[in-house]
């Protein structure tokens, strides 16, 4: 075990990690940030997506030691400073973009990263951009609506 430090949600943190400890396990077990979910262990479902230095990353596919000293943002860091929901989070609630909530953190993180690089995506671009995140509940309908709404495209979001 060695101590691994990074900046998570703006706070400098340190926790122990083996060489084989994944970033997802470091966040969940090392730091108690259980909002990042593990749905498949094999980097295919996207429930564990976080931002590493601003880029969406599946945290089950990265060793914690390999992102030492990086700036990591998790779902726990997505609300506004006053605790209110951020724009993407609020759009997910407004448009019923979640049901059981398990894939939701990864969806929000992927959607936020998508909008950061493409602020006004088309429906097709949203669907393509979320292709790495599996949701079994919503049929994606309201997730796509929420992301379009979060981009300010209310006309499309209302169909």
């Amino acid at each position: 075990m060695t101590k691994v430090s990074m900046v998570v949600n703006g706070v400098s943190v340190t926790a122990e990690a083996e060489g084989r400890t994944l970033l997802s396990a470091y966040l969940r077990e090392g730091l108690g940030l259980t909002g990042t979910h593990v749905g498949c262990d094999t980097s295919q479902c996207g429930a564990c997506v976080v931002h590493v230095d601003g880029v969406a990353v599946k945290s089950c596919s990265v060793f914690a030691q390999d992102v030492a000293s990086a700036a990591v943002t998790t779902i726990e860091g997505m609300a506004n400073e006053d605790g209110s929901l951020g724009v993407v989070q609020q759009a997910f609630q407004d448009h019923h973009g979640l049901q059981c909530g398990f894939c939701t953190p990864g969806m929000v993180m992927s959607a936020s990263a998508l909008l950061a690089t493409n602020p006004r995506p088309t429906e097709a671009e949203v669907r393509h951009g979320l292709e790495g995140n599996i949701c079994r509940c919503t049929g994606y309908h309201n997730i796509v609506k929420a992301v379009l709404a979060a981009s300010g495209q209310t006309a499309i979001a209302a169909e």
Partner: protein
Amino acid sequence: MPKDHGIGASMKRREDIRFLTGAGHYTDDIALHGQTYAVFVRSNVAHGRIVSVGTEAAKGMPGVLATFSGEDFKDVGGNPAGWLIKSRNGEPMREPKRPVLAHGKVRHVGDAYAAVVAETYNQAKDAAQAIADASVIEELTAVVNMATALADKSNRVHDEIPDNECFDWGWIEDNRAAVDAAIKAAPHVTTLELINNRLVPNAMEPRASIGEYYPGTGDYKLTTTSQNPHLTRLLVAAFVLGIPENKLTVVSPDVGGGFGSKIYHYGEEALVLAAAKKLKRPVRWTAERSESFLTDAHGRDHVTKIELACEKDGTFIAFRTETMANVGAYLSNFATVTPTFLHGTLMAGPYKVPNVYVNVKAVFTNTAPVDAYRGAGRPEATYSLERVVDKMCRELGLDPFEVRRKNFITPDMFPYTTPVALAYDIGNYQATLDKAVQLADVAGFEARRVASATKGKLRGLGLSTWIEACGIAPSALVGMLGARVGLYDAATVRVNATGNVSVMVGAHSHGQSHETVFAQIVADKFGIPEGAVEIVHGDTSKIPFGMGSYGSRSLAVCGQAMSNACDKVITKGRKIAAHMLEAVEGEILFKDGVFTVSGTNRSKTFGEIAFSAYVPHNYPLATLEPGLEETAFYDPANFTYPAGAYICEVEVDEGTGHVEVTAFTCADDFGNVMNPMVVEGQVHGGVVQGIGQALLELGVYDETGQLLTGTYMDYAMPRADDVPFVTVDHSCATPCTHNALGVKGCGEAGAIGSPPAVVNAVIDALSRAGKGVTHIDMPLTPSRVWSAMNA
């Protein structure tokens, strides 16, 4: 103006705040002082005799605390089937014991035959590998194919069951001769052989369980990913481990989807409890996704031959089906009711067909257990019916819309008893079909088809008109049919002293939005703000004995129990108000949260009555108990019968066989709707699961019983770019006649109605292009569609 609160309002969900901020509370999120980790040793062969289990190899390895094998559980109970089915000859089904850990034989890849508990997860994982390496399993020939399983009596999944048959069921056996005669005499018979493809449920949260034991009191606690904590408590306590129910608490906190797969009790739950008692420390286990693929109960897996007999004008005369239903290696809890009473009883569809006979043979194989998955039997029935109706229309050159209209049970015919023994209470199948035709712009299809053709795409349109039965009941009837449990539900409404309300419900929400929608109903009943109502679920130490959530039953059964409990509270409130207002009870009106003496302005608010009930200084103590808390158990008089019409449009790429769903339209009758936003979300999700079944998903075992589709690289889940927006309507509502809320249930509809609509659309596209294709088995992958076109 749409309502902004109460029944019928699209209120935003309160549970979203925690899910959107990472504050959800799922089983694997829980960390306990002194916790230990269990890892299971699973068979890597489909069928084998356990010669020796190498638990000794783990002893002394770093962190190892305990090991277990089937030997440790051979004297405790088995995990039972919840429904006793009788074969046509009157014999009871074959029920092999399903042990906590395999003993004697392993019967499917993933069958756990040992377990190890260690200080850390990685230590347990390493020790489990050592046990696997040291164990000797003599591989036997696997029984995988159902027809072979029935024919080859020399090869047995369970040594005591010679032909691998669980049961051979006829519904209704007395119908058989008349149905056979009607088919023989009919002017036209359409026959279709089809496969309802094996699915892996894939709730996004893997199963997880934590066992705790408190030596001071002898109490146990199981935290687990269950859709029905009380049912799990009953099974694990009373049937498997023999723990008194009052010494076991089962908690299902936030649960990340179920779709049926988390109804059932699994051996891992018993193991963590037994291990916790042995070690006097918490023992936790969370499935890896590969364990979910190998051991969560799978869905569907029917092989069916269906015959439709009709007049030349398409008037139905008879339906007859023969089905082989795979139950896998062991009977999961609902495995026997799913292909029988949840399937055969729906085989009349929404049609006034006079003759129906259903035969189902359930077959043991060396594969994972198969059980109810979203829709559970009803998708299988709907798929068989709607595909054969479509094929008949093509054979006779009839319009599929008109054939449905001609055969629908009409609104004046309710209540209507079908030849397969269901009594439909109400519906309007014409209305939903008309609405779907309008919303899908069927009139504009030809123009769209031409436009597709100019792009080189074959466009098709498919229809499915479906019905299902939800809220299975009454208990006395299902008991006669073999159910070993009741199917009521329960709710306790506790009005607290300051007028806010705690509602403890037997239903469990794992995506269904109960915390929001149930609060809307209670707030509406009491005339108080939703914010004053808290919904409590998922903890057997807090909630009354209810049966949980599956089969679209939460609202129609538990919701009605909750509504009834509210009525009891209001009745008591009237008595309290009458005393306080010096009136007689019959004069007290209750409206918008205020008790008023009729014809006067004398009144007491809901909060004043609650306070008086708990501080009974001015209170009729001689005739009325203090407090304001009521429980209602509700056992429905009948099933509910949601129904609807689904229309799918597809474009087929002639060069590759790729199918794109370009539009999907649903017109559903769910009766009264409590929260339209939530109902629409349920339909969106169900439809996409159905599109997944129709186009993408297939659980594949090879001939040796290895699961070839054990990861998301091999099992194709629908992703965002595989599906379109789904058009949803629920305006053609005929309120259920036998529950006061007038509700029917909406959770499974999308998954029931959609697969045949998709397949019918593809066949339509190919037919219009003259490809001569009459059927393709699901999933309609590019390879299968291309091969069919180029056969």
